[in-house]
């Protein structure tokens, strides 16, 4: 009797309920985490024009958005039920320096359970400073929970959370961030088994105050979470999670005392997952997830939506979100060691902004994957096929379009042990990506959608490895690759290319004696670039790369390493003449990199390292057969590193990685008036962490 038939009724019933639930939940809501936020935040970063640090602007926008959505519900996660270290209190702090950036983090985790009472507190403080942009970011939060065990399966209690976030910078056009989130709630938790079904749940009701830079939302919140699962004989199981969060907030804005908005927020989530052992040859697993949400809040938008320079006004915003995801996988175990896996995924994700409509994203994905493997004749061949399609509807933007991406991949590989010392491996892959832009809409003059484009990449390689003894091994790999870039539109097809690359790599490693280790990697590559519609631009490049590492262990505590990399590149035209193809070298670019490293292990907890490196990269232009050096860059670098891992008793410890790099970069040009410019580029990289546990061990 199969597990599926044993699971029988409950399994089918749950599956049906989940499917009904997934489609039946009211379609009104926005997910809290917006996976398509990055284009928005990138656009915001661009508009801010913080040339000092685009990354800063990006992270601000992301934090702001995430915090804004989370603030609509408050923090309902419990710190009473989380896993914790031994001891009633643990404290950790970390200080990091990355060039001009400093970050100091502190965290404390407290938990005590006197009698039937449970008390927990978690506090964290992070202060970040970025010298270049004059930016200071502070994030402080503390959360305290209290619970009384009324019965073994029921706890009643409450929670208090405080969060303060600020972000300021002296850079022009920086948008500062201020956010104060306070929430207090009463909670009831239950955890009880009803026959074969364990049931966990949480009910909470509380008050939320979310104060931002220019607006404030406060009001009541309600949260509900329940989860159950069922394990069947034979290894099959099924689990179901349901949650709902509601809040009703009154929103006001700082610059208009008469503005009041009644926000009703709602997020419902349903998750079902399970796996089934159908018989000894076949197992299956599946997951389904449905979410509906609505988040309401005031939004600042330009008074005239067609004029971004018009005055900002406050309007009510409602963000409706829908997520539907499902995936299923089948795993076959066939005779003679063969295995076949197949999986499919379907997903749709909508975030509809009613006021800031241009932020709307509607995306869907479909994916299929199959792989087959069967050992025979000493080979271990496998074949994998993947096909995925993703659509992104951006028609609410101007200019806007529907972007569709297809990725298809076929991969075949096989390996064979030819003898005790010789092994071989073959791999071939072909990948097609297809990008299409349909339904172009725009009111802007002179705009056009990006060009539809295909890219096919096919490559194959054969590798032989020879290992006659534990002290010596060598290998050779030959590969060929063809990469076709096909822009379909007339405006872009002038750049269509076929890039054909041939490569040979030879590597060897030797350990002559107990203190020496030498390894070397040689590779030679020839890359031909053929321009489909402008053959005069065809190019040929040669790259030769030689990398050598020699390691010498002088004593138990001292090791020396010598690293040498030589890279020679040349490039030129690859013209088709009546007599055949002709190479006309036009430039050379070479790199010589030499490094020496000394590692001294002073004690069990301290290692010191000194490294020196010289890198020289000359560029030469070839004119009428003569190579003329046009410029050269040189980098000399010295790095000192200290690594420590110091246990301080059983309950505390100090770890650190401190490195100081002193570097000089020189740029030499050999034009009409030769120039020689040098600049220092010294910096610190530091990461020091300390942890201490009271009443238990940190290890």
């Amino acid at each position, binding site marked *: 009797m199969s597990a599926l038939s044993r699971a029988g009724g409950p399994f089918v019933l749950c599956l049906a309920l989940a499917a009904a639930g997934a489609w039946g939940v009211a379609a009104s809501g926005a997910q809290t985490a917006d996976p398509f936020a990055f284009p928005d935040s990138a656009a915001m970063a661009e508009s801010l024009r913080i040339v000092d640090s685009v990354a800063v602007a990006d992270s601000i926008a992301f934090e702001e958005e995430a915090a804004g959505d989370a603030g609509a519900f408050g923090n309902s996660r419990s710190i009473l039920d989380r896993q914790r270290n031994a001891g009633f209190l643990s404290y950790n702090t970390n200080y990091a320096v990355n060039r001009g950036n400093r970050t100091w983090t502190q965290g404390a985790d407290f938990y005590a359970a006197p009698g039937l009472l449970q008390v927990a507190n978690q506090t964290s403080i992070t202060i970040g400073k970025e010298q270049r942009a004059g930016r200071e970011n502070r994030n402080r939060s503390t959360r305290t929970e209290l619970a009384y065990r009324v019965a073994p399966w029921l706890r009643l209690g409450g929670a208090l959370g405080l969060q303060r976030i600020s972000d300021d910078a002296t850079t022009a056009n920086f948008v500062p961030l201020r956010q104060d989130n306070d929430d207090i709630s009463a909670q009831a938790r239950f955890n009880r088994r009803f026959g074969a079904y364990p049931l966990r749940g949480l009910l909470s009701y509380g008050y939320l105050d979310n104060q931002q830079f220019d607006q404030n939302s406060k009001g009541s919140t309600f949260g509900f979470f329940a989860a159950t699962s069922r394990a069947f004989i034979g290894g099959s199981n099924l689990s179901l999670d349901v949650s709902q969060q509601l809040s009703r907030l009154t929103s006001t804005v700082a610059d208009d005392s008469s503005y009041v908005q009644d926000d009703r927020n709602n997020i419902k989530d349903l998750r079902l997952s399970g796996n089934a052992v159908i018989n000894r040859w076949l197992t299956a697993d599946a997951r389904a997830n449905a979410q509906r949400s609505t988040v309401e809040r005031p939004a600042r938008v330009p008074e005239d939506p067609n004029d971004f320079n018009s005055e900002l006004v406050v309007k009510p915003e409602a963000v409706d979100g829908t997520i539907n995801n499902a995936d299923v996988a089948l795993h076959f175990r066939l005779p003679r060691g063969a295995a076949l896996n197949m999986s499919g995924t379907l997903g749709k994700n909508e975030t509809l902004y009613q006021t800031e409509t241009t932020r709307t994203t509607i995306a869907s994905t479909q994916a299929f994957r199959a792989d087959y493997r069967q050992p025979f004749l000493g080979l271990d*061949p496998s074949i994998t096929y993947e096909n995925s399609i993703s659509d992104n509807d951006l028609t609410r933007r101007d200019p806007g379009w529907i972007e569709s991406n297809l990725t298809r991949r076929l991969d075949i590989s096989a390996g064979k042990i030819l003898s005790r010392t010789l092994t071989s491996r073959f791999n071939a892959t072909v990948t*097609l990506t297809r990008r299409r832009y349909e339904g172009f809409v725009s009111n802007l003059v002179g705009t056009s959608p990006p060009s*539809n484009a295909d*890219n096919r990449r096919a490559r194959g390689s054969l590798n032989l490895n020879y290992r006659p003894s534990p002290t010596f091994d060598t290998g050779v790999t030959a590969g060929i690759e063809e990469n076709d870039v*096909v822009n379909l539109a007339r*405006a872009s097809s002038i*750049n269509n290319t076929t890039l054909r690359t041939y490569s040979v790599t030879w590597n060897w490693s030797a350990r002559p004696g107990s203190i020496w280790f030498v390894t070397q990697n040689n590779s030679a590559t020839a890359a031909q670039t053929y321009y489909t519609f*402008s053959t*005069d631009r065809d190019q040929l490049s040669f790259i030769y790369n030689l990398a050598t590492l020699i390691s010498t262990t002088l004593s138990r505590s001292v090791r020396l390493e010598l690293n040498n990399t030589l890279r020679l590149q040349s490039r030129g035209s690859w013209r088709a003449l009546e007599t055949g193809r002709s190479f006309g070298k036009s430039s050379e670019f070479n790199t010589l990199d030499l490094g020496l490293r000394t590692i001294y292990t002073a004690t069990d907890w301290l290692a010191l390292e000194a490294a020196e490196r010289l890198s020289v990269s000359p560029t030469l232009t070839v004119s009428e057969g003569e190579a003329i050096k046009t410029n050269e860059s040189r980098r000399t670098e010295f790095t000192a590193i200290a690594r420590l891992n110091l246990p301080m008793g059983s309950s505390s410890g100090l770890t650190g990685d401190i490195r100081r790099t002193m570097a000089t970069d020189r740029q030499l040009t050999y*034009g009409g008036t030769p120039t020689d410019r040098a600049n220092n580029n010294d910096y610190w990289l530091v990461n020091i962490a300390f942890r201490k546990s009271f009443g238990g061990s940190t290890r």
Partner: protein
Amino acid sequence: MKPIRAPLLALAACALIAAGCGLFDTAQPESPDSNPGIPPSFSVPESTLATLERAVESRSASNYGLCLTDSLGLQEPGFYASFDPADLAAWLQEGNPDPGIWTRERELTFFPQFLAFDPNNFYTVTLTQDPVRPDVDLNATTRILNRRYRVFAGGNPVAAGSAGLTMASVGLSGDWKIRFWEDRRDTNDVRTWGTARLSGR
């Protein structure tokens, strides 16, 4: 058939089917000059300049080449171009070798690279009378047209400057072609066509 060979055949069959049934074929692109538009005309110097504008805008390398004089079989020097002295000095100051004479062959090689500067947008070209340099008639078959040029792609400037274009009436048909392009700067913040030639895009 021995059962041991079945997996090998299955693998080979899968690979052949996938490769052979067009699963990994790329689509057929449009040719950059697939829309010939108005046929080229070289009857007067101005029509040659209009042909040159349209050749850039429609990405037609062949029509662009027809606007330039060719030494082959015409018993006369082929097209060549000079650079603005400031552009040339800046180029040499960067450590680059002297570009030498910019010939017709180099111009034809450069043309697709110039179009590739902004591959996603069609270019718009305007040639207008240089307000400070009048045209000069040297003789019945040679004229110097001083034109200010502006090249944009999707609203962004690609090249701007002024050119003294020596037009010559060549061949039995008397077609007017560009024999010499004297390139000059006339803006501070947009590169000239000559700088584009030097930088190869």
